[in-house]
């Protein structure tokens, strides 16, 4: 079937099978750089996108289900060419090393702060529980989020 959705601000179309995952379509069909394959089974978070503002594992989301929706990746957060606050906070806090988990982390962090401007430490840990990072040890990621929460 043919689906149409908004991806990072642009209208896109794709012919998909009902069984195609959103990840497969984004990565292998549309060549999207800002989603990554980590496990294919919703455990690591490297494939996370926002679907109408909510974080979803694109590897567990059927492509057909985003027809008519808005899909956002870390590449689609710029406003007037400027990177988003959460992206700037990650940069300032050195919250990435290899960068593979980062797009997913950014979106989960953004979704958390969009919904809760002043999360407690526990709420931050809870939000990040579905994102694995093997490099940073999480501390700078948590600090980046906290730096925005204090406002």
């Amino acid at each position, binding site marked *: 079937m043919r689906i149409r959705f908004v991806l990072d601000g642009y209208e896109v179309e794709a012919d998909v099978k009902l069984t195609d995952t959103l990840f497969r379509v984004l990565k292998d069909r549309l060549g999207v750089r800002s989603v990554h394959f980590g496990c294919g089974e919703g455990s690591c978070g*490297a494939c996370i996108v926002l679907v109408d503002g909510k974080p979803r594992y694109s590897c567990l989301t059927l492509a057909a289900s985003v027809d008519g929706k808005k899909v956002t*990746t870390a590449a689609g957060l710029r406003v007037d060419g400027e990177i988003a606050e959460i992206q700037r906070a990650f940069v300032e806090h050195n919250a990435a090393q*290899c*960068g593979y*988990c980062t*797009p997913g982390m950014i979106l989960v962090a953004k979704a958390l702060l969009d919904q809760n401007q002043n999360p407690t430490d526990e709420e931050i840990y809870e939000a990040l529980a579905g994102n694995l990072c093997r490099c940073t040890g999480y501390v700078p990621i948590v600090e980046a989020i906290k730096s925005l929460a204090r406002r």
Partner: protein
Amino acid sequence: MDEFALLGKPVRNVQLLGHVTGETEFVDDLSFPGMLWIKAMRSPIPRGRIKKIDTSKAERVPGVVKIVTAKDVPNNYHVNMAALGIGPPDEPVLPDNEVNYKGEAICLVVAKDEETAAKAAQLVDVELEELPPVLDMEEALRPDAPVIKPWGLNAHIFGSGLDGATPRGGQGRPYFLVKRGDVDRAFESADYVVEGSYLVPPIEHAPIEPHICVARPEPGGRLTIYTATQAPYFVRDNVAAILNIPPSRVRVVSPSVGGGFGGKVDPEFEMQVAVAAMAVGRPVKWRWTREEEFTVSTVRPAVKIEFKDAITRDGVIIGRRARLLHDSGAYTRTSPYGVIKAVFNLSGPYYIPNVYYQGYCVYTNKQPSSAMRGYGVFEVSYAVELQMERDARTVGMDSLEFRFKNAYRNGQVSASGKVIEDAYIIETMREAAALASYPLPPHLLSMSSWG
């Protein structure tokens, strides 16, 4: 400290902007026109003889282009670290008569997409004669154990020119040996003898980016391999060797790697991808699943270490015996190197004048092990520090005091006969104690690495 313009400065990591916007390029971002995908048919058993491979059903799946087996590999047997003098070439790119670990790739399906390749891989019929696997290292070393290596022992022979370290033509023993002083005399005169046995099991690097590779044949018999590797020249040398082409015809490109930790040092699958690319004459891609990462990719070796320490009444370790078993898994890879490095470090940051250290590189029917962060020394530091704790308690001394007492100093000679010139463990421990508010008595605070 301002003698430097840039050294010691917290310069911002230049990749951060690319990471947070998802612009950083990884291998998985590469795709070429006409590219095909690879999936492997893997052995369901840890050890067996291949009687028959029937690919007829798989070949008939629409979208399958080729099934690659051992006969498509020009030079099948290799060892990853030949460039370092490690041998023998005990590992096939694709097995031709036996499998030696559960998950070993028996053949590759090259097809128009991942799904088709995976479906066809399940339709490959392999007839295997199951053989009893060797799994336990102690059992593997017993004279009556089934032997899984062609040279007749489930252990690497050190000293015969194949360990990358000792000279050729030597006696050859199934273990690497470091000895110094008179360890028997040390035990005779010891006031305490403390034994311990420690085990680190296999651990997986688990970088968030799995193994992913794209190989693309180029004009003039050349080949470009895009792969997440920590060692492009290892890949180049190994691919050239198994294809029987000059290394300069192979270009290896590693974009940013999504975590390595030693798990992307060995060329584990690039040879297979290269063979597939040359066989079909088109770009091919292989994206390993997370399950393959856990069950097939190299792991940290399991290491078992037994210590026996000879200690004086006042808490000085005067002798140490150690026996180390390193589980190489089914193939050699880098294991002899890892064993040698481990054995050199069995004294830890301490001065022990009389030592006898043996390290075995043992083969078992499990996925091959290789480097992981701290290779050879992670396991040793673990065992040494637990043994030091046991020693300290036996002598009745505080944990840190015992370590200060035995710490190595500049001018002393290490187990390998090297004069120590950069000792700094005393100062490091002192700083750590201060950081942790761990009180130290004055006689320890005044110790130094220089006498």
